């Protein structure tokens, strides 16, 4: 029992080593660019990103991001896809499986920016949205309608998430940062379809973000939500608690007093 270790421990140690060496390497070599605007990617950022990429990503995505049998090519996926995957902690992947999990973020903000700049430099693709594009100051009513038509079938009408086929699932949307919501719609990560700007215009995407943020800020008017999971969870709750109470009262009514 002394040597009990998670099978992932070895992976985690190697991984941390990679991140540390990559990080130190990058810190030693590159001029860290503190500006948060990814539009103005400098050559030094791209160089730093390339080093991080070779240390952390290239084993699956291939040298220069051309892809291998284990992972797709990153040429042309754009900075938005890179920021969504790396900033949400999905990438670098921990293990293969039906779906990449959200983990604690593995890089500093500067390192993420560098990786985004590098991936964006590989080929033309959707760029990281600006602060104004992701601000939750659109029309929540319109966003709600668009959300119910385009997103709710997988993510649930209030963004509570849901199951897909063969172990995959649509994640919970509550608490997801605005930029990740925008980038997910724009790039279609993993099994999520793409909602390009012709399908959902930037204004549509802004309205959807506004709706999701409205849901987070406002409790359900109908009482306790039971995680918003819908009729199955509500039915089970009533079957057990409601019917249980009725049975208990019936037993009490029929029992003789002591």
């Amino acid at each position, binding site marked *: 029992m002394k040597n009990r270790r998670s099978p992932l421990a070895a992976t985690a140690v190697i991984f941390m080593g990679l991140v540390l060496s990559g990080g130190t390497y990058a810190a030693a070599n590159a001029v860290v660019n503190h500006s948060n605007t990814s539009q103005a990617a400098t050559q030094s950022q791209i160089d730093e990103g390339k080093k991080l990429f070779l240390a952390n990503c290239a084993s699956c995505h291939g040298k220069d991001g051309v892809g291998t049998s284990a992972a797709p090519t990153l040429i042309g996926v754009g900075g938005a896809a890179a920021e969504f995957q790396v900033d949400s902690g999905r990438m670098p992947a921990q293990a293969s499986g039906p779906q990449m999990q959200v983990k604690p973020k593995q890089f500093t903000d500067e390192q993420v920016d560098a990786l985004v700049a590098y991936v964006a430099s590989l080929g033309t693709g959707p760029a990281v949205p600006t602060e104004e594009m992701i601000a939750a100051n659109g029309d929540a009513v319109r966003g709600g309608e668009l959300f119910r*038509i385009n997103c709710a079938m997988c993510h649930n009408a209030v963004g509570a998430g849901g199951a897909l086929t063969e172990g995959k699932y649509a994640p919970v949307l509550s608490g997801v940062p605005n930029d990740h919501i925008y980038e997910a719609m724009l790039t279609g990560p*993993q*099994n999520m379809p793409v909602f390009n700007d*012709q399908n959902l215009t930037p204004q549509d995407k802004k309205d959807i973000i506004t709706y999701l943020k409205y849901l987070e800020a406002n409790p359900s008017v109908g009482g306790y939500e039971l995680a918003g999971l819908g009729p199955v969870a509500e039915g089970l709750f009533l079957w057990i608690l409601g019917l249980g109470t009725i049975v208990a009262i019936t037993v009490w009514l029929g029992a003789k*007093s*002591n």
Partner: protein
Amino acid sequence: MSEKTKEHRYDSGLAVVQSGTVKDPGIEPHRVRMTDKSAKHERNASRQVAAMFIASALGSAFAIYAYFAFPITTELGSVRSNTFFLGLGITLGLLGIGIGAVHWAKTLMPDAEVSEERHQARSSEENRARAIEIIKLADQESGFTRRKLIRRSLYGALAMFPLPAIFFFGDMGPNPTDVLKHTMWRKGTRLAKDPYGTPIKASDVTVGSVFHVIPEGLEKLGADKLEEKAKAAVLLVRVADGVLKETPERAGWSYDGIVAYSKICTHVGCPVALYEQQTHHLLCPCHQSTFDLTDGCKVIFGPASRPLPQLPITVDAEGYLVAQSDFNEPVGPSFWDRSNN
């Protein structure tokens, strides 16, 4: 009372009574309650009952207080506290009276066990003879047996009365209209985005995209808008080159990797729209029917028994996606004369 019960002793009639059956165990021995044995317990029980009634009164008073303290304002969250606290007060008001009354009856009111036996179903000989007498008198007075013409014409009227129903119920047979077999899609109808009706260009649909589609003009319909939408809803997807496995007769139904399928499940009609971009599975959220979008939307899992109907599409001169015709078959779940033309 005991005299009367004896008179109506249960008669087994024609039933076979077996010897050695379980004997009537009678009433279980009376158990004396604590409230009957000890004055202290009786006092406590009466205090408990009174406490429940007082709790009820407090609950009702709280409901009045809650009405004023938690009003419904323009803020939606106020509905939640209003209903919750009103409900809490009214619940306490009702439950207090109910629990108090039951507790009172169980602990303090007389608890003698009494059994009442069933009386016999057969009427007395006297009543039976009188009933026959009345029927005979009625026959005599009305002349039912004597007046043949009246009697036979009445039989005829009674026999005719149900016949119209045969024709009325005949309408439940083959559906007199064909609304279930056709949708709004016609040759040349543009595919438009749900809900605002913006037409879609083929170039808008990039690989991996999914569009929720209505026929152009649906958004302008009046009362029948939802009815038409329920039949005509379409899911539009573009897959990478070489992914589609198309049969020769459907080769011309897609456009450059773009396919359009009915969104209405062939099982019980839920909207099938959970599209997985990499596996190309289309999942129905109601009963987990799964369709393979690359292979004519055939069923690969779940209770649905038919593939989703496909909408043949092409592009018009301006590059907008248009339907070539209506769906190739009626959309949605099976109905009785689905296969008849």
